[in-house]
């Protein structure tokens, strides 16, 4: 069990992606906080929990593939062998 670590709590500063989206953690796009002002407040979320959700999302997608079929065929691989 890991104890409290400030760096695991506080997400990095946001980087602007476009007019309405910012990013602080890889794969996680966030609505620009300025758009969550009038009716819906943005919540503070610990960085470790965001990362946990991202990881569990990958696990879920892998589970869904395996649930339906034994293997997944790659389009990139098929295109690279196309003469």
């Amino acid at each position, binding site marked *: 069990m890991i104890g409290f670590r400030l760096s695991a709590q506080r997400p990095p500063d946001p980087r602007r992606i476009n007019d309405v989206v910012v990013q602080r953690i890889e794969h996680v796009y966030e609505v620009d906080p300025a*758009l969550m002002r009038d009716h819906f407040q943005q919540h503070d979320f610990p960085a470790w929990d965001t990362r946990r959700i991202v990881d569990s999302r990958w696990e879920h997608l892998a589970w869904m593939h395996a649930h339906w079929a034994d293997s997944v065929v790659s389009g990139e691989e098929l295109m690279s062998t196309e003469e």
Partner: protein
Amino acid sequence: MTATLVTDPVIDELIGICGPDNVFADKSSRVNRARVPAPFPVHRWAEHVPDVVVLPTTAEQVSEVVKLANRHRIPVVPRAGGTGLTDGAVPLRQGIVVDVKLMNKILELDLDDRTVTVQPGINMLKLNEELQKYGVIYPDDPASYPCSLVGGRIGTSGWSLIGGRYGHTRDLVISFQIVLPTGELIWVGDGGGRKVRKSSTGYQLKHLFMGHQGTLGIVTEAVLELVPRPEAEFAAFFSYPDYETAWRSTGALARSGLATLAGVVLFDEWKLAYLRRDDEAYIPQPDDVRCVVATAMYGTTDEVRPGAKRLLRIGKDTGGAYLGDEISQGDWASRHDRYATPLHGRLRDGQVVPMSWHCEDASINWTQLPAVREKWHDIVARLGDRFRIFDDWGMFAYTNAAFKPWGDYLTEIDVGIWEQELDDEAWDAWVTAKRDIAAVSIAHGGSISACHGACRAGEVDLVPEEMGGGWDVMKKVKRVLDPLNIMNPGKYLLDQAYEDGPS
């Protein structure tokens, strides 16, 4: 019929049938079974709360509950997962909700004749987890795969995301047992044999009792199709600079004749604009990605690999750019939660507000898709001009035929609605918009609904028009089978069957 019909003695009788642990008259059990995820007039919630909820465990108990309801003339509403989007499981006149969730057993697995017999409360994901061990699956795959149940799939005659390859609910349910509105238990299928897929004996009753939204009885057991578990899955997502190219490419991909092709879906520019707001896969896409077409294949590896090569070629030759494995595979695996998760939308100034998701669905032929799309977006835009609580989340068109992915398309427009702000005026405008959307579908030779059913306020008004002469037959069937109008009364305008009083 009024709430007072469910008196304490009636509740005692229900307890005698279902047992003391399976009858609920408390507020939370009832209030939680008053609605489904479709936008709901939350300001009128109280009108839909049932008087009592029962959770039977056997067909005989269901039959006894329905007989009791006939004796006391109390409405009965069947409910499975409660995910139906046409309000089928929403009580219109209170009464008894028969929730089939505890009837969730696998009764028989027949690997020789390739069937599995189940109770109606089982969920497809849970069933397939069990079937996986035997190298077979039950391939009914709605976007609500993790949460809808077999009884509700039959009650709605559902549509499956991979129906182009494996068929839809009506093709995959071979036969079933149903409690008629007067309480008798019968089996219906193609003819009499419970595991027979094709028969010419008698009327084809299976289809009559498929998609009736609980107005003709309660399914208590079903024999389902088993298919070999696929060795290989392939998904390819293509991007396009404009709708016209994407639409033509969709047609070419769907008509390819590739037997493993399970579905082709076209996302329009509005859908892409919507996805660019919040969706990990689409935010980073360049501006010239305006439409996307997604495809999926299943089968043996020996079939899927060469088929996939051909599919990639067709996509490219018709103007599509492959979006890569990460998006193709990841988005396909996300097909069950993509629409349920965005619980917020935007006002026109961009501010985020809590919104629930609603979709209007129709069956539309390929040639009509561009015109229908323009008209539907216009209807939703006019609604948004009047009320800020509606947000156009775009459209998709998904191959709709069973076993052959061409011809017509499940066509959906997704609309975000800020439910808490609904009042009578906004609700009426919404209902009018739904009616207008349905009218466009009929005018273009389509059908009001491909998968959800058409019994919600708005579209239901046009069901007689779509059914034509069949509407009178529908009313006669209802009246003969349900002489006291016990089963899900008020749905599908079927009160009209009793206009000169009950039989």
